């Protein structure tokens, strides 16, 4: 098992470096002159040239890439914003807890609702329950997350006045963003859970379990569910990635000053060092989540574990 953890951890290094290089390269081709952005339109050519030299903008691509990698991974410094000249690392750290809280809470809500919804639909295949759950799930994967957020704001904040429409200081501020963000995820989980469960329910070993005389409850919870969860765990990683993406927009709808909001401000102000830092930071965070998902996956499925352990399947 430890071999697997170690191997998986080591593999993260090239992935994270690759992500950094990829994003740096994409944004390297961004049009416009950062020096101009920083100094404004009334700067003289001499001032611009001096600024470019200060930032090392005239250096070749590889020199700049190397410098960026060194700054990020050795000095843990994402540089400074072109616009506000503030340290991006500090800003990211200040904002990250809010984004993290929103993402994790949404993910937990999505799993707590989505998985039972899917299991129930599969177990009662063809019933009214099944139909209702699947219609909800279908709506969930079909509605843009930010639009769900807007609808929720219209109903619960503006019309009923139960919850605040914007803000970030209190727990109540996170209820609507969390529901909005979780809706798509729970729908994905429910759909995956249902189809996975149906596949498992029709498999031979479930018939074996029934033939043993187990009650339907035990057949479902002891034999079918753990097997059906395996693909759901994989999808949970993907779902989390999508949620991370939609968080960016959700934060903007609810004016939550998280990393997403920071990134959108960066995009709108053409402050690409900020955009670059946000994308890389979130991608690293996502890689860590995927690592955890993979480890969870191998804990559930002995076949995966077996590939990495020498000993025969003893725990």
């Amino acid at each position: 098992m430890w071999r697997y953890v170690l191997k998986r951890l080591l593999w993260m290094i090239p992935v994270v470096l690759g992500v950094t290089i990829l994003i740096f390269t994409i944004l390297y081709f961004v049009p416009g002159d950062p020096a101009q952005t920083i100094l404004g339109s009334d700067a003289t050519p001499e001032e611009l040239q001096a600024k470019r030299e200060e930032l090392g903008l005239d250096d070749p691509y590889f020199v700049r890439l190397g410098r960026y990698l060194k700054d990020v991974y050795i000095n843990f410094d994402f540089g400074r914003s072109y616009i506000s000249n503030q340290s991006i690392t500090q800003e990211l750290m200040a904002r990250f807890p809010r984004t993290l809280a929103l993402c994790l809470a949404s993910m937990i809500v999505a799993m707590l609702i989505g998985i039972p919804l899917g299991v129930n639909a599969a177990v009662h295949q063809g019933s009214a329950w099944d139909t209702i759950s699947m219609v909800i799930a279908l709506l969930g994967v079909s509605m843009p997350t930010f639009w769900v957020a807007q609808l929720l704001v219209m109903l619960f904040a503006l019309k009923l006045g139960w919850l605040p429409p914007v803000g970030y200081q209190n727990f109540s501020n996170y209820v609507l963003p969390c529901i909005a963000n979780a809706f798509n995820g729970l729908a994905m989980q429910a759909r995956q859970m249902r189809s996975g469960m149906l596949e498992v329910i029709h498999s031979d070993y479930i018939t074996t379990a029934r033939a043993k005389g187990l009650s339907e409850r035990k057949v479902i919870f002891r034999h079918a569910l753990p097997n059906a969860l395996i693909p759901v765990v994989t999808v949970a990683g993907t779902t989390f990635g999508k949620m991370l993406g939609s968080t960016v927009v959700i934060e903007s709808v609810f004016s939550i000053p998280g990393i997403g909001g920071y990134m959108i401000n960066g995009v709108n102000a053409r402050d690409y060092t900020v955009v670059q830092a946000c994308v890389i930071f979130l991608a690293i965070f996502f890689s860590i989540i995927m690592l955890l998902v993979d480890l969870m996956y191998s804990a559930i499925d002995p076949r995966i574990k077996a590939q990495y352990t020498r000993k025969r399947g003893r725990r």
Partner: protein
Amino acid sequence: MSNNNVKTTEPVVGVNDKENINEPFLKVEDLVVEYTSYGEIIHAVNGVSLQLERGKTLGLVGETGAGKTTIAKSILGILPKFSSSIKRGQVFIDGQDLLSLPEKEMQKIRGNKIAMIFQDPMTALNPIIPVGKQISEAIQLHYNVSAKESAERAIEMLEMAGITGERYNDYPHQFSGGMKQRVVIAMALACRPELLLADEPTTALDVTIQAQILEMIKELRDKFNMALILITHDFGVVAELCDEVAVVYAGEIIESGTKEDIFIHPTHPYTIGLFDSIPHIDSDADRLKPIAGLPPNPAVLPKGCHFSPRCPKATDECRDQPIPMVETSPGHFCRCCHI
């Protein structure tokens, strides 16, 4: 009786000795099962009746899709609920009608009084539960024993099936096909069933392993005095193990009798056709005589004899009405009007 383990969960059927002596141990009466698939009704089993005594073996022989497995699953009550239904018929064990039992009572019988071995050992075991646990689970369920004791018994069962007890904690993917089938058999026999349903237990295995597994089933049957229903399409297996044989075609038994009746005096044209399509090493015929055509679509069965479209002897009489079973010699039945 071999069943000397005291079962604390007493089966509802009660004590066997009290039952009518003339009642056979297992009796299936006029069983009709249908499936629905994409709006079509599939007539899988159409009025099957059969009987079996303790210690005896009945072979159900027929082509794939003839309804053999469905018969076994109906007896055990594990047909898929969503897509199938038993339309008619009764299944008696010791005089008690299983089909009218509530699900809760049926669960006490499944895996306990009646057990089943499945066709494909590769998929019959739960991939993420250690095999020993899968066996002890049934023991714990039907006998009121501690986890430790059920584990000990599971190890005993594994060893009886020729697997060392230390593999208790191994997962199915660590076993070969033949070994998995041994596990499946150990699991089925864990609660000393009185009736064992073996659904093509050797089809998925190599020939040498087949022989081992058959030998083992035979030994255990005699040891526990079980009634055994053996589903197969292989006459070699039938010759090896069975006392009685029922030939199934399109959801009907078309011929039944003792092994000798069927092997020496096959009567139904289909049975004769089956024997003719087996190669004999001592025969001087150049080619086999396969049965022409294909089994009928179970959604649209022929009106009269289901075999009539493929039968060389078929006449208008065959095609018009259902054919009754005729007793050709004591205990030998055949569903054909041209005997």
